[in-house]
């Protein structure tokens, strides 16, 4: 009991207690910010937030980030895992290089990629102009569509290693005998992948899917470095940051943060269920 006490006390004092206080803030009017006395408004702030157009845009952007990120991570992750799960010479080095982007701070990922998308001295513009694909330099991060795609790409750069490792572990848990038996029966590699690999990999795919979703849903650092709080790329967390700390509207900011928590918890729940099933 003594051994769990520090963990329990720290979590209770610095997470659970502030969480309860935060929930209280989200149910009160925003008057405290201007020096007034907050009054209880129930779920009013939640309604306000869902009606605000910037918050709605942020929700749409976040859905796009999550969809793009998870799709790319799973397809590329599967390709990486199928290539790397069997032993070969130099595999250790390749795996070490593979996990490198995951190890770097996401702020640094943003910094490394920033010069690529810069409108004036950007490398992307330079290449596209030399190939005569675009006539003028494009301000990529100011456009709506491309900015979301590129930010998602930078995010994927950091998370793909983790997803790949999960899928590699999944592939390694599938016994070789299943493959040799089906090869005897005349199955082609493509059919094997479709009818053996994918179904047996389902638990790992569920884990990878949810890890990818939980990470992408709280995307913030990469956007902050690449495009600041610009409206065209704001994620939900960026909108929370802006509401709470730039506009000092604690009540609405916290309400939106709790909505995000609820959605994230939902996905994490799916993760727990999927993971629980895969280990039993």
């Amino acid at each position, binding site marked *: *009991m003594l051994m769990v006490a*520090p*963990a*329990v006390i*720290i*979590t209770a*004092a*610095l*997470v659970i207690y*502030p*969480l309860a*206080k*935060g*929930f209280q*803030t989200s149910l009160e009017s925003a008057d405290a910010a201007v020096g007034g006395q907050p009054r209880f408004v129930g779920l009013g702030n939640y309604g306000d937030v869902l009606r605000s157009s910037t918050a709605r845009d942020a929700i749409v952007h976040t859905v796009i980030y999550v969809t793009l990120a998870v799709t790319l991570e799973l397809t590329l992750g599967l*390709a990486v895992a199928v*290539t*790397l799960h069997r032993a*070969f010479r130099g595999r250790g080095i*390749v*795996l*070490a*290089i*593979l*996990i*490198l*982007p*995951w*190890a770097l*701070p996401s*702020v*640094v990922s*943003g*910094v*490394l990629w920033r*010069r*690529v998308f*810069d409108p004036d*001295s*950007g*490398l992307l513009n330079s*290449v596209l*102009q030399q190939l005569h694909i675009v006539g003028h330099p494009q301000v990529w991060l100011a456009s709506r569509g491309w900015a979301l795609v590129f930010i998602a790409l930078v995010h994927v750069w950091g998370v793909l290693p*983790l997803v790949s490792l*999960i899928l590699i*572990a999944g592939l390694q848990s599938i016994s070789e005998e299943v493959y040799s038996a089906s090869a005897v029966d005349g199955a082609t590699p493509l059919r094997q992948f479709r009818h053996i690999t994918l179904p047996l990999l389902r638990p790992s795919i569920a884990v990878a899917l949810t890890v990818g979703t*939980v990470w992408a849903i709280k995307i*913030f*650092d990469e956007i902050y*470095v690449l495009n*600041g709080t610009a409206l065209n790329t704001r994620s939900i967390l960026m909108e*929370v*940051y802006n509401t709470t700390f730039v506009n000092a509207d*604690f009540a609405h*900011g*916290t309400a939106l*943060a709790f909505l995000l*928590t609820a959605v994230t*918890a939902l996905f*994490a729940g799916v993760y727990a269920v999927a993971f629980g099933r895969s280990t039993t």
Partner: protein
Amino acid sequence: VTRCRAAQLLRVVVITGIGLWSLAPIGLGVATSLSTQADVQAVPARWLPRHAMLDAYRSLLGGTGDFHAGGTVSESGAFAHAMWNSVSVTLMSTLAILCVAISAGYAFARLRFPGRGALFWAIVATTVVPVFTVVIALFELMADAHLIDRTLGLVLVFVSTTTPLAMWLVSNHVSELPTEPEEAALIDGCTRWQAFWHVVLPQMRSGIAALSAIVMLSVWGEFLIPLLLTSTSASKPVTVLIPEYVGKYTTNYPLLAAAGVLALLPPAVIALVLNRHIRGMLSGSS
């Protein structure tokens, strides 16, 4: 035979792709950090500097006084101080998280006590809580304890936010270890604590190496929490300082890239040295 060769070729292509994808942005960052503003602004873009220069690093680490970074001025010594803040916060937090998470993770995996399951999941569930839901109350708590803009305050918050995940990894790891050695020690008259210290901890060596690496990387990369809880160079870590080098209209890319390269060195070294252990723990097969 042709299919075999095609598969071999495909593998080479994919592996080259992985290498390029992982390393090219880092290589580009290094090249940019060795460039001059003239190199960076050249049309068409120059990927590699004409002459490699260490000017950006020199200005960043001080010694040349103030440096104009595309409209923003960086104080000399500010970057070195931020690096020091990051190093000290990371080391202190990691040590504290390891102590708290290993003892709790072990207890949850091995001991039976009332409320065990509920308590465990309550702590693990807090990993999904975004910092904004707690930050205002946390800020008040920290202000009462005079811990705003102090490295100790950051350490406390990181311990509370990172312990749940670390504890979860430890308990997974411990439950995969064989129970016989501990049971033998207990039968031989060791106390639970002695058995933990002399029998279990040595068995966990690889797991602890992986855990320290994962915790260090995660604390080093933290951005949002220090962005909210630090205001001056007294406690600002390097991740919070770096975005300040991004100019409003033009950005001094060599300086920004040099800052990025210096900030990625410690995590890159950790990831490369401990990568076997990290892989084992992340994929849940350690």
